[in-house]
Structures are given as C-alpha cells and as structure tokens.
C-alpha cells in the first residue's frame, strides 16, 4: 500500500476538483464549490446523508458527466470513461446473461481476446471466485455478486477505483467481510480509492481521509484526516480512542444536517430535545 505518498507533495494529485459545480437542468445544483485533491494511493471517503451529491462526485470523476462549472482533472487531464477509472456500484450491475468470467471479460475490451480470458481467470482467483467462473450472476449470493463486481473493476487495473456505496445492499456480516477483503485487496495492490458511503463506521474503518458532505446543495463541509495506522487489518481502529471521539462528532454533524434539511424525512423531528 502506498499510503505514505498521501502526504508527499512531490507527485501530481491522482484527482483534482477545481471549483466544481454540477446542476442537472435548472434548479439547485447537485454539488457546488467542490475543491479537493486526492494523492495517489490515498483512500478517501465521501460521507454524507442522501441527496448530498456523493454519487455525482463519482460520476464526475469517471467522466460519465461533465461539470457545469469548474474543472475535474485526473492526473492532469479531464477524465474519459473507462480510461483510468473503474466503478463499483451498490446494485452490483452485473450482466445477468453473462457468466461470472464473461462479466469480467466484458470490462476488458482494450485487451486482445486471448488475454481477456486469462486476465479474468487471474482476477477471479484473486477474489476467490474461481469455482463460479462459469455460473450466471443470478445463482450467486449477494456477497459473491459484490465480489464479482469488485473483481470486474480490479481487472481493469484502474488508477482510481470509484466505489458508490458498494456494500450498502449487503447484510451486516457480508458487509464486514467485504470491508476486510477490500482492505486486503488494496494492501496487495496499491490503488487510489474514492469511496462513497452514508455509514460513519465504514468511513472511519476504511478511509485515510473523510470528506463530510452536506445536502441541498451538495458541498464539502469538513475534511478529516484520520489518525489511525495504515495497517487496519492487524490493528483494528475501532479500539482506538480517537475512533469513538470522531464517531460521535460525525454522528452529531450528520444528525444536524438531516434534522435541518427540509428535504429529509426527519426534518424538524429533533428540535425539542436539542439546544443549539
């Protein structure tokens, strides 16, 4: 893992947002005034309630959509879909009519056909799915589907891995296992990761840095450098005293956002009990 690079000023940032705003049609922008820079090898988490534009930031990074204002730069150039990034989605998005192996080869059109299969088998082994290579996604469990979706992204050897609430639709146990697995995979193979979640614990467990976002319009309200040692696997950060403090702090911020957001289901619900 190349976490050390995260704070070095030598290398060019892997990703850079310069005063980025994105509006869909008229109305309030989905995100506004986004300035950020991600170092190669860094694992950054976008944390925030729904409607804060987290997914929009990933789509902008992937080049799937263009900013309305400002610039997005991937290693100095505007992103082109499928060139330096790979995405992992909450809803897996596997092609149901392709076997596990063919779902991976589909994502590798840039390789010669013979190499694609080789590469797919390699990566299936890497995530422990070799024995289901010829199975259709419909027959796989949720955890296996998400591992396959992750394998499909890793097979492309992206400079930046974009993960959109990838574990949100898994049950608690599968989620915990996948988090550990992701840490293992990114340890074995250095990668810059942009990870979107609305889970405070997940953000604290996985990230080097957390961008706390607030909704309507989506913007970054706080950036937190996490003080935990890079090796999360051998030293669980949940036992760290800072973990508890940050967890409480993040929860408070998120609760305030949700209670004060007219668009949320809980708008105004906490007014009586909280003095602010």
């Amino acid at each position, binding site marked *: 893992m190349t976490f050390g690079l995260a704070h070095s000023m030598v290398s060019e940032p892997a990703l850079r947002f310069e005063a980025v705003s994105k509006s869909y049609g008229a109305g309030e922008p989905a995100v506004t005034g986004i300035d950020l820079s991600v170092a190669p090898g860094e694992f950054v988490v976008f944390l925030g309630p729904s409607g804060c534009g987290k997914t929009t930031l990933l789509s902008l990074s*992937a080049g*799937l959509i263009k900013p309305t204002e400002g610039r997005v730069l991937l290693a100095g150039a505007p992103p*082109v*879909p*499928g*060139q330096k*990034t*790979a*995405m992992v*989605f909450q*809803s897996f*998005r596997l*092609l*149901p*009519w*392709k076997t596990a192996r063919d779902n991976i080869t*589909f*994502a590798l*059109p*840039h390789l010669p056909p013979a190499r694609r299969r080789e590469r797919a088998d390699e990566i299936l082994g890497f995530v422990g799915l070799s024995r289901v290579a010829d*199975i*259709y*996604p*419909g*027959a796989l469990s949720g955890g296996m589907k998400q591992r396959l979706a992750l394998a499909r992204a890793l097979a*492309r050897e992206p400079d930046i891995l*974009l993960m959109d609430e990838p574990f949100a639709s898994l049950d608690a146990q599968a989620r915990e296992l996948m988090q550990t697995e992701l840490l293992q995979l990114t340890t074995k193979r250095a990668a810059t990761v942009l990870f979107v979640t609305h889970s405070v614990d997940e953000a604290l467990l996985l990230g080097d840095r957390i961008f706390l976002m607030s909704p309507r319009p989506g913007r970054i309200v706080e950036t937190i450098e996490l003080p935990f040692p890079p090796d999360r696997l051998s030293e669980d950060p949940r036992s760290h005293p800072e973990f508890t403090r940050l967890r409480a702090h993040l929860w408070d911020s998120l609760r305030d956002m949700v209670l004060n957001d007219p668009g949320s289901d809980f708008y105004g619900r906490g007014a009586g009990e909280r003095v602010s």
Partner: protein
Amino acid sequence: MTALSRIGVLVIFFMAWALASVYAPRGIIPTPEATLQAAQRLWESGQLWTALGDSLTIYGTGLGLAALAGTVIGVLMGAFRPLGRALDVFVYGLAATPRVAFIPLIILLLGLGVEAKTFIVFLGAVMPVIINTYVGVTNADSELIEMARSTGAGGMRIFAHVILPGAVPFLVVGLRLAATIGLINTVVAELYTAVRGLGGLLALYGNTFRMAEYFVIVMTLSLIGVIVTEALRLLENHLVRWRSS
C-alpha cells in the same frame, strides 16, 4: 410427474369425448374410433399430406419472414427513438385492426395464391414481434448501460452486449404470440383465398358434415400448435438459460 398428469388429462379428454359421442345427437360428435378410421383414410389417400404440406409451407414462410422483419423493425424503432416515437402509435393501431379486414385488399394486390396466403400470415405474425422487440429494446436497464459506459464501452458495444440480450426475453414472447396468430391466419387465409390446405379441408368437411374427417383436421391443427409452441419454449429455455440458474 408432470408427464404423468398430462397423460391423465389426455385420458380424461378421450373418455369425455367417447361419452359425448354416445350421448350427443347423432352426427355431431364422431366416436374416437370413427375419427381414427377417418385419419387413416385421409393419410392413405395422401390428402392429409398434401394439405399439410400446403399449410406448413405458408405458415413456415410467413412466420419466418415475420420473425426476421419484426425483429429488425422492432430493433430499429427501439434503437432510434425518434423513429420509434413517430411509428409506434401506428404500429399499435395496425396491430389492433383485425387483419381479416385487409384480406380483400391483399387478394386484389396479390391474387389468391401462395403469395397472398403467405402475406396474410406474415401480416398477423409480424405485429407482436415488432411490438415486443421494440418494448424490449426501449426497456433496456439504464443502470447496466451506465455501468457499460463506465468501462469505456461505445454505442455499438453497449447495444450488442447490454441492450440486445436484455430484449431477448421480450422477443421470445413476441415470437410465441406470432406463432399462434400465424397459425390462425394460415387457416383464415386458406378459407378466404383459394381454398386449399388444412383450412380448405376444414371448410370441405365442415360444410358437408363429415364430422370424423373434420375432427381429424382440427386435431392436426392443434398438434401443429402444440409442436410449434413447445419448440419455442425449448428455444426460450435455451436463450434465457441465465434466468433459470
């Protein structure tokens, strides 16, 4: 188990038939034995074969052309949205118009021969294929398309690997409907144009009250229906095998 219960249904059917032939007024329902003998006569005289050949040629050609043209038109309408939006109201309208209404016009244009008959079958069968293919292509999963775009896939690649395979289950439903309508239209065509084939025999024996022969023709038509639908079901199981797993 299913096979056994199906045989059971068949046995009950034959028993009901035998009973009905005894209790119904004379001359309406032939006994199973009489029907079997009629089948033998029709078979040996070669009449059944000729009629079967005529009908199956019309049916097969019309249905085959409908499957081909319907898929192409449906895909084009779905892939080029402005074209689809311009045409779909008219396609739905045409599909809702009883195709029998066009027969006099078709006869004027194509005569009473094989061409007219094939066209009547084609016209009936092509509509469900167009409509279902069109719906299948327009209903493509936008999340999967976004995923494909994120891998850098272009329009052609997305179409071939995401949109078309997603439309196949719809297309198969369209084909099944087309097969049924096509068979109906085969008989209709044979009744309204030059009276030949199985439809011709149906008219001949029906009008002369030769009910045993008439029953043979009816059962031959059901048998064709069963065989074609079963074949299409097998095709569906193969094409959509990813679903059952």
